[in-house]
């Protein structure tokens, strides 16, 4: 039976009550307790820094050459916090409610309320660390809006918010390294969790430079290893982002929550050809000022500038007048797909829509001219000033678009299309962020807990830092307080021996297949199956076919993959092979989960279940639960359901009209 351990009591008092009664570990004992942290993105770096500050002995692992490279760094637009600095009606409750509604009522009230409560402290903490957020001329912090909300609660640092937040956390982490509280293992990949007497007690990691396997003991293990969007091959994730750490934990008994909940982000640079290795996001913040449209005529090949205003269809403003271009991501993505599928797409592939800044440049230009006292400004003057404002707000994004496409977005509308971006699903965790394996925790995108079936923009950074700075430092004590008598378990323990042997055996098997196809080609094929049959729209027949195809692909992979190079050396092909093997297994589970959930909610759109207007149709009577999958054997899972209870935010048909 799943126990989410949500504290009793009123929603807005649960976290306070919990903190007031949670077990504590005294400083002398903390020095003897070791914690392993896998991943150094926002969740991992903030957890490592905070636990190091508290006095725990921390070991932090990342596969990149430095903790500062983790993919949190690529987050662009911003981070939400219920500060209400803009006096526009924001509050902890509003942020909680928007997040629950944005997630289409598939997240836990208790977790989400806690997230909203600690959000304000995150901003304080980051500013204290020297994160240079955008400011107004008065010296105070600036805010902007993001999708799915009607207040301005997003803090940002141009289009590089993730970078600045991660560098803040990274510096805090490096400070703990300097003080000797954290030991850093870069270019290391976790390949198994070691479980002793039912508790997580360490990991097997591979040194990616030498290829050696290493054993590491910890009284607790924290997985902060991010999401699994790369199961689709093409996504906005980094090339190295992978599910391996989470998947190994799943194989050691951790349940996997809502694997089919993936987020397709509406504004990405479209695919250009088969050579494409990844997709690039254009921040959601661009929807603050940009207008999205397609021609009213099908197969219109005119240049955007030649299409007059009355022949343009601003379809988001038309369909969703209340939120307009700032509808949540799932809604915006499906609307773009609907227009393109109906033949209104633009560009050579016809799989794109326009994101247009002409109106914003004019609007800002007029305001600036007024500020500068220019009477009757010419169109050129307005444009000049408008471009300056847009450059300050979004300059780096426009430059990036220009570098990738060779087109100038200041003069011609950008072409955009949805792409895989984030995974709401992940390891099932309770209120304390512990998985179903005692002592094994999952933080940030690696867990499933806060975003339900759809994440709102600027909430991923918030969750990663909330988990690492303000949740785990309290909840881990509740577990470790009972571990103060557990000494260091020797690395010669049979459980370590066995785990290392199994890892080495798998690597040998992979290497000795000596087949004819590259790892990359398998990954591409898996991605194609997932995108076509488990992507933006899903149906029963497609999912059943996908499951069969993935099983066949798995067999083929294990009999025909070719990995050049050796085992005991730097070998990126071998690293990738292990990750793709795990993605293949995960892909099957995602399709099984999507097939099982016969309702549409958030990013999970079952074509059989939609309203007359083509919106997602939830089925609260049958599916108001978290799917937690337990691995029973190869290709065999058992479903456990955690019912979702809504005491405060009562589920209703989500409307942004």
């Amino acid at each position, binding site marked *: 039976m799943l126990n989410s351990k949500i504290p009793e009591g009123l929603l807005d008092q649960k976290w306070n009550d919990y903190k007031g009664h949670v077990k504590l570990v005294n400083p002398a004992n903390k020095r003897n307790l070791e914690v392993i942290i896998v991943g150094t993105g926002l969740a991992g770096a903030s957890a490592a820094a905070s636990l190091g500050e508290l006095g725990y002995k921390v070991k932090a692992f990342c596969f990149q050459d430095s903790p500062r490279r983790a993919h949190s760094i690529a987050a662009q637009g911003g981070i939400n916090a219920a500060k209400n*600095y803009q006096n526009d009606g924001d509050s902890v409750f509003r942020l909680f409610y928007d997040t629950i509604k944005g997630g289409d009522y598939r997240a836990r009230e208790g977790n989400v309320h806690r997230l909203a409560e600690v959000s304000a402290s995150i901003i304080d903490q980051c500013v204290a*660390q020297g994160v240079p957020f955008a400011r107004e001329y008065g010296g105070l912090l600036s805010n902007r809006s993001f999708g799915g909300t009607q207040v301005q609660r997003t803090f940002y640092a*141009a289009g590089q918010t993730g970078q600045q937040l991660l560098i803040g956390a990274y*510096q805090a982490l*490096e400070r703990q390294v300097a003080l000797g509280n954290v030991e850093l293992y870069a270019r290391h990949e976790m390949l198994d969790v070691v479980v002793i007497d039912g508790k997580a007690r360490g990991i097997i990691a591979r040194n990616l430079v030498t290829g050696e396997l290493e054993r590491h003991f910890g009284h607790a293990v924290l997985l902060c290893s991010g999401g699994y969007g790369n199961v689709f091959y093409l996504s906005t994730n980094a090339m190295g982002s992978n599910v391996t750490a989470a998947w190994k934990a799943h194989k050691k008994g951790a349940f996997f929550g809502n694997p089919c909940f993936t987020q397709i982000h509406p504004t990405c640079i479209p695919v250009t050809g088969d*050579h494409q290795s990844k997709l690039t996001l254009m921040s959601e913040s661009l929807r603050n000022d940009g207008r999205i449209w397609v021609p009213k005529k099908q197969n219109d090949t005119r240049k955007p500038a030649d299409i007059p205003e009355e022949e343009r269809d601003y379809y988001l403003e038309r369909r969703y007048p209340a939120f307009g271009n700032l509808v949540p991501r799932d809604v915006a993505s499906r609307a773009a797909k609907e227009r393109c599928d109906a033949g209104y797409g633009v560009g050579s592939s016809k799989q794109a829509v326009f994101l247009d800044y002409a109106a914003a440049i004019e609007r800002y230009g007029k305001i600036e001219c007024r500020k500068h006292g220019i009477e009757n400004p010419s169109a050129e003057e307005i444009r000049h000033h408008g471009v300056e404002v847009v450059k300050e707000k979004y300059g780096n994004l426009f430059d*990036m678009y220009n570098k990738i496409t060779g087109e100038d977005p200041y003069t011609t509308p950008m072409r955009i299309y949805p792409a895989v971006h984030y995974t709401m699903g992940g390891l099932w965790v309770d209120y304390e962020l512990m998985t179903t394996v005692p002592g094994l925790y999952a933080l940030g995108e690696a867990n499933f807990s806060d975003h339900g079936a759809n994440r709102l923009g600027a909430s991923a950074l918030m969750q990663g830092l909330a988990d690492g700075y303000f949740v785990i430092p309290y909840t881990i004590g509740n577990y470790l307080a009972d571990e103060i008598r557990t000494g260091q378990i020797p690395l010669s323990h049979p459980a370590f021996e066995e785990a290392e042997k199994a890892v080495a055996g798998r690597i040998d098997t992979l290497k000795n297949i000596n087949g004819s196809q590259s790892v990359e080609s398998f990954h591409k094929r898996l991605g194609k199956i997932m995108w076509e049959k488990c992507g933006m729209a899903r149906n029963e027949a497609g999912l059943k076919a996908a499951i069969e195809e993935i099983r066949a692909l798995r067999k083929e992979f294990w009999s025909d993959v070719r990995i050049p190079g050796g085992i005991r050396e730097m070998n990126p092909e071998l690293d990738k092979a292990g990750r793709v093997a795990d993605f293949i297994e995960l892909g099957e589970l995602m399709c099984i989960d999507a097939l099982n959930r016969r309702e549409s909610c958030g990013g999970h759109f079952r074509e059989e279940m939609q309203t007359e207007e083509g919106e997602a149709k939830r089925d609260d009577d049958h599916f108001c639960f978290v799917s937690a999958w337990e691995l029973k054997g190869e290709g065999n899972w058992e479903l456990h359901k955690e019912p979702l209870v809504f005491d405060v935010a009562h589920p209703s048909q989500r409307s942004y009209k």
Partner: protein
Amino acid sequence: MEHYTMNLTLKVWRQKSKQDKGHFDTYTVNDISSEMSFLEMFDVLNERLVHEGNEPIAFDHDCREGICGMCSMYINGRPHGPWEGTTTCQLHMRAFKNGDTIVVEPWRANAFPVIKDLMVDRSAFDRIIQAGGYISVNTGNAVDANSLPIEKEKADASFAAATCIGCGACVAACKNSSALLFVSAKVSHLALLPQGGPERKTRVLDMVAQMDKEGFGSCTSTGACEAVCPKEISITNIARLNKEYLISGIVSDK
């Protein structure tokens, strides 16, 4: 945008390990689309090498969005290649034309030993940050974020310095392999903010000392670092560092 395809000759540095001497290998790649990124062109070559039973070329890369700082190729004598303000992963093949020969090497600096082929070890940068590239504030100590107004101009200048991605192109471009642009970007980021005030003097001294210890050379003042920086970090940060260093060095009551 007109698209075209091209055939190219690549001369790529191959080095099995840190101990190996290393050498150039020559490859030809055909039908490369001008729409590809530079790294996607390497993907095509590597895919072919795997099919031929050869070892692919090892190179560092991750986000492929120009922000993680992991990619690090020295292309035709210039870190990150011919485009200004661009990382290798954002360099696109339309920068080249049919028949071109492209020479690709790793970053070359004593403080960045080669791990394999085009991959180098940049952990020296992490150790420089450990020496003082932070503000000592524990989680939970912070006051309200708006209780400390910061002049927009200073906040913007601090942000501009903080956009450094730690890729090491500045070191690779410098004939002395100096890391001063990297160090000065961090010193500036924190010195321009009031929060960075209390540790301002020790920070610059400790970071520079660590930089010297890692074996980076001294500044040549030629500006090669600024010219190749993919984030266009200004060399004026070095002037600021020098000022900070001088003042910190001569005052007695640190």
